[in-house]
């Protein structure tokens, strides 16, 4: 059976067209969405910093600002005019101007710095003001030698959800889409082509047990799926700073999705008479789900009656579970309702497939 799995994998790699749809197609989606929405996640933009002072205090402030790289990027400028230009051109959201002598001791000491803001980037302004404000308060305490009485501590309530954005949402959608497309399209078309070419018939003339043939197909598909998920996550995380959370749990749900859609693929191969028909039916099944199961946008905003229907599509609960794992730090068992829908689909498709799918005609 190992040999059959290896042979299946070889065929997958050599079938350039199928390889494109299973690997390159989701990758193209990842890159496109990555360019639009990836990178920096909650980043509110760029801050110009003009440091005309050489005191320890000013150096500390600049380095503190630089540490906030997950909130904004720092771009250092030499003069205030250059910083203004950047803001005017929309290349920066705010600027911190540290005048000469700021933080120095003695006669020339300056105690005030300036923050330039852009009304169009209120978020950036608020962020930089709070960082600078906190820094100055701290300094004031040190200088006046008093201890703060009231303080607060912060704790991230949901470690994995820290700063996730639309790209993280859509990346999970792309993984789900990849599972669905490669399993439904891949199996429906390849199995029906095997039947058309009489390869299935030829195999039934050998003593090979039918279940071994099927299991080898399934395993080869799953291996392909793991590679797909690996590539999508690697590109998403490394190039576009995506957050995917608990990868093993995500993998489990993704492969559950793959298995369910493999059943759909087998079923389509069973009920269609030619590979062309199988291809058409596979497309008819996958395309609507791409849009109605929340691959690219949340389905919660759909009208209630419509949502009640589309949430039952097989991809919907799978995506919901995958997102709860990677975006909310959830666990596989967190959503009993969703799991029930998935289970019903798996059992239902399994029964239908067992009922209709045969390697030979009799």
């Amino acid at each position, binding site marked *: 059976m190992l040999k059959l799995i290896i042979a299946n994998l070889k065929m997958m790699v050599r079938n350039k067209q199928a390889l494109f749809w299973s690997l390159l197609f989701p990758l193209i989606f990842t890159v496109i969405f990555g360019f639009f929405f990836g990178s920096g996640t909650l980043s509110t933009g760029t801050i110009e910093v003009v440091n005309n002072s050489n005191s320890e205090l000013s150096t500390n402030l600049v380095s503190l600002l630089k540490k906030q790289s997950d909130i904004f990027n720092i771009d250092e400028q030499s003069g205030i005019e250059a910083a203004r230009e950047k803001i005017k051109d929309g290349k920066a959201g705010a600027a911190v101007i540290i005048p000469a002598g700021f933080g120095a001791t003695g006669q020339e000491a300056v105690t005030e710095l300036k923050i330039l803001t852009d009304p169009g980037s209120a978020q950036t302004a608020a962020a930089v003001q709070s960082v600078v404000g906190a820094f100055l308060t701290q300094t004031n305490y040190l200088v006046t030698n008093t201890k703060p009485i009231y303080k607060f501590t912060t704790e991230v309530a949901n470690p994995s959800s820290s700063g996730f954005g639309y790209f993280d949402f859509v990346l999970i959608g792309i993984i789900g889409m990849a599972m669905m497309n490669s399993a439904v399209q891949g199996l429906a078309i390849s199995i029906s082509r095997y039947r058309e070419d009489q390869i299935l018939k030829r195999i039934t*003339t050998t003593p090979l047990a039918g279940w071994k043939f099927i299991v080898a197909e399934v395993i080869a598909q799953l291996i392909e799926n793991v590679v797909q998920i690996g590539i999508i996550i690697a590109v998403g995380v490394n190039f576009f700073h995506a957050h995917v959370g608990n990868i093993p749990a995500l993998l489990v749900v993704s492969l559950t999705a793959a298995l369910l859609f493999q059943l759909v693929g087998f079923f389509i191969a069973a009920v269609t008479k030619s590979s062309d028909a199988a291809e058409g039916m596979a497309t008819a099944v996958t395309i609507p789900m791409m849009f109605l199961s929340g691959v690219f946008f949340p389905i919660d905003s759909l009208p209630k009656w419509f949502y009640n229907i589309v949430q039952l599509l097989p991809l919907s609960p799978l995506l919901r579970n995958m997102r709860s794992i990677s975006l909310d730090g959830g666990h596989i068992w967190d959503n009993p309702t969703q799991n029930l829908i998935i289970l019903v689909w798996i059992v239902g498709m399994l029964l239908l497939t067992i009922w209709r799918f045969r390697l030979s005609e009799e």
Partner: protein
Amino acid sequence: MKNVIKIKNLVKQYGELVAVDGISFEVKEGEIFGLLGENGAGKTTTLEIIEGLRRATSGETEVLGHKIPNELRIIKKKIGVQLQSSAYYNHLKLTEILELFAVFYNHEIDAVKLLESVQLELKKDAYVSQLSGGQKQRFSIVASLVNDPEIVFLDEPTTGLDPIARRNLWELIKDIRDRGKTVVLTTHYMEEAEILCDRIAIMEKGKIVAYDKTNNLVKRAIFPYSVSFETEVNDEKVMKNLEQFGVVSQPGKKKYYLLQMKDSDKLGDAIDVVRKFAPIGLAVRPASLEDVFVELTGKVILPAEKEANA
């Protein structure tokens, strides 16, 4: 010689349609056995029941002493099957396909050596799609030999091939027989069956209408000899003079006559008459299997029909 296949009262029904209607025959060890018949006569259905691909409605089938369907697994290990279509995996090389099929039988093979036996060793790294029609058929046959089977089933192995490729395949089939294997084949080509097959069963509408050694079948011809020639002499005169010897017809081109003779003793007299017509291309032929086949099944299979159904 012992019988390796025994079929008794085999019936296969699809609803109202009776595809195989109570046939019985045996195949002897080491022979080339031909199953002939028109398209739809039930040849392939019969083969596929013996190969375990279809279930018989009733009747007994025994292969190498094992009963179908109970001992099908054992039978499958000992037989090799070539199906009518020779398609195989598109994205595997020839050696890879052979090795994969050998795995299905738990059989060790030297794929290159097998390919050598059908002169395909130079194509070992090719894909099936890169082979010519004859090469595909040869590959398809060698693929049925990966488990070193005792019986090999070939379903229309030469359909659609050119005459040279067809003769190559005859050599190959003979080789397989010489290696001690029993060969069961179906074909549309009577010439091929006459040359290759030791014994033949002719099927017609699900029934066996003739079943004998090939020689004996040919002897059964109603017209043991035929005389053919071309002449400028007018129709009426030719007909009038020759009808006493048998059936005269103009089966094809203009001025081409065919005299089918029932009584071989009068062959000399008939030829003497024909000579008076200044014949061109005078030929005397003994009856062939094709003549017997046409007489038995009552129809001529047109070449165009053969190709269309290939």
